[in-house]
């Protein structure tokens, strides 16, 4: 164990945290290698935040052990705190100060001189595209700017390990891309990133390995491709022009996709979980060949709900809107 400890950013065994009657984290085992992005996927209330708050020493575990960068999170909490940083789910910057003041304040608290803190602040604001907003109060920032400042605040001193808690939830696609760029740059700089998310798509884009958490426990661990292979590649939604043709469409889809097809509440709509996206083109060809007029189709990325259905046999209980890559044929 000591031989591998140096290469592991996190090794946690049987972590437990109880809030009153809720077992928020119920025996989490986690092994995160150094370098790269580790994705932590789960629906709202699964225990993601609680787990990483324990790992970042902000919460004391009620059971189990964890070492972060080789240091025990309870006995060597101060050492761990010096090496990691956490960007919370909700921006934790001070809204009543300017962006510049926020970062200078943190620079001073990390031990920089005033001059060093100002220099570091200017470098960070420049790199995060916030130089123009430096003297504006944070309460006037957009969501994306706030999120970038929040991440900048976490790297006033470059951490060895960075926890990012749902960094893109609630952001528009452009801001989300910016956050992804930042994550990639962090990793290129040698920082290990543990990122929680509700989107399989996001984990797929960024993570080298990932774990899925539900009800406070890890239900599966692996690379995003392994997970996707287990889940299937998504759901095909088809809407026929004339509801009278739905039965025929259903028969044709079952034949060509060889999976069960669901009849939606909408009398013209059908959906099917597909394992192989290549079959979709074939299936649509069959419909057109048979004269079934399709008014709309979409191949969605597997949503978190579908991931959960496939992995656990039950849907994620609280579940935010999934990402759907839509293509329309009209």
């Amino acid at each position, binding site marked *: 164990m000591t031989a591998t400890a140096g290469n592991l950013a996190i090794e946690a065994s049987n972590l437990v945290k109880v809030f009153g009657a809720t077992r928020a984290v119920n025996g989490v085992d986690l092994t995160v290698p150094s370098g790269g992005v580790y994705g932590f996927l789960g629906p709202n209330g699964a225990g993601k935040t609680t787990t990483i708050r324990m790992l970042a020493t902000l919460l004391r575990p009620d059971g189990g052990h964890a070492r972060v960068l080789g240091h025990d999170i309870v006995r060597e909490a101060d050492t761990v*705190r010096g090496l990691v940083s956490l960007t919370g789910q909700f*921006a934790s910057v001070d809204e*009543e100060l300017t962006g510049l003041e926020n970062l200078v304040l*943190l620079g001073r608290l990390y031990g920089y001189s005033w001059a060093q803190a100002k220099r570091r602040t200017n470098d960070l604001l420049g790199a995060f595209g916030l130089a123009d907003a430096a003297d504006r109060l944070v309460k006037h920032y957009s969501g994306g700017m706030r999120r970038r400042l929040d991440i900048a605040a976490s790297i006033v001193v470059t951490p060895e390990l960075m926890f990012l808690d749902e960094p893109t939830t609630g952001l528009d696609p*452009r801001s989300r891309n910016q956050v992804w760029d930042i994550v990639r*740059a962090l990793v290129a700089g040698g920082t290990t990133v543990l990122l929680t998310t509700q989107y399989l798509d996001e984990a797929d884009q960024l993570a080298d390995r990932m774990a899925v958490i539900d009800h406070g426990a890890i239900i599966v661990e692996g690379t995003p491709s392994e997970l996707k292979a287990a889940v299937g590649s998504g759901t095909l939604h088809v809407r026929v022009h004339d509801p009278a043709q739905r039965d025929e469409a259903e028969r044709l889809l079952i034949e060509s996709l060889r999976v069960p097809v669901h009849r939606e509440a909408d009398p013209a709509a059908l959906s099917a979980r597909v394992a192989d996206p290549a079959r979709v083109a074939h299936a649509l060809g069959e419909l057109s060949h048979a004269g079934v007029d399709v008014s709309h189709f979409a191949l969605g990325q597997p949503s978190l709900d579908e991931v959960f259905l496939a992995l656990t046999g039950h849907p994620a209980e609280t579940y935010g809107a999934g990402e759907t890559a839509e293509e329309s044929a009209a």
Partner: protein
Amino acid sequence: MTTTETRPVAEGDLRSVLASRNRPARPSALSASLTFGWRALLKIKHVPEQLFDVTVFPVLFLLMFTYLFGGALAGSTSEYLQWVLPGILVMTVVMITLYTGVALNTDITKGVFDRFKSLPVWRPAPLAGALLGDAVRYTLASTMVIVLGLVLGFRPENGAGGVLLAVVLLLVFCYSLSWLWTLLGLLLRTPNSVMGVSMMVMFPGTFLSNIFVDPQTMPGWLRAFVDVNPVSHLVTAIRGLMHGGVTTGQIVSVLMASAVMVLLFAPITMYLYRNRK
């Protein structure tokens, strides 16, 4: 998706920022506290309302009581002003102490506090820094009330020295009281509930005192409360310091009340502060 040119994140700059693995030495307790004090000053600069929205009531009361009831209560408005101004000063600054708890709770609910907790600094530094900011707020508010009083015709018999000592005594009391609000700030869920609960303590605490009228005319049960209310003792001592006639006993009773508040609330507050969640 060719949004590269509109992305404001400068990747080259970002790489070089991240390449710096400089780890400065941990700041001293004093330096960290002063930095938090600087933060409190910045907040006064950006949100000056925090000085005004709670002082506006005492100032209105000052004007209203002096000109509306002053003649009836003390024979003349000018005489009443001499009597009521020290009380209004106490009311104003005591009201402002509320913000200590509200500000702390805001930091907690907004997550700023989490970030501070994860810094390698002396643990009580955020609280110590807040005290520095409080000193500035209390002094500014005191100055405002006293200057307004002087303009209206307030003439303290003990002169500037007496006023200064009175303000010092007031600050000691308010610092001690602010431990209670800090405690509430850590205990309650939202800044609004901190404000609400504090007001529930504060209104009877300031009105059921000798700020506006001499308790001589009050019914016995009310007088009993007014006479033990520490705010009454504070007001009496401050009147004595400004106009003469203060006794050692009066000052000692204020200091005792302050000490009791600190001994009662500070340990609980520090316990909650260390063990939150």
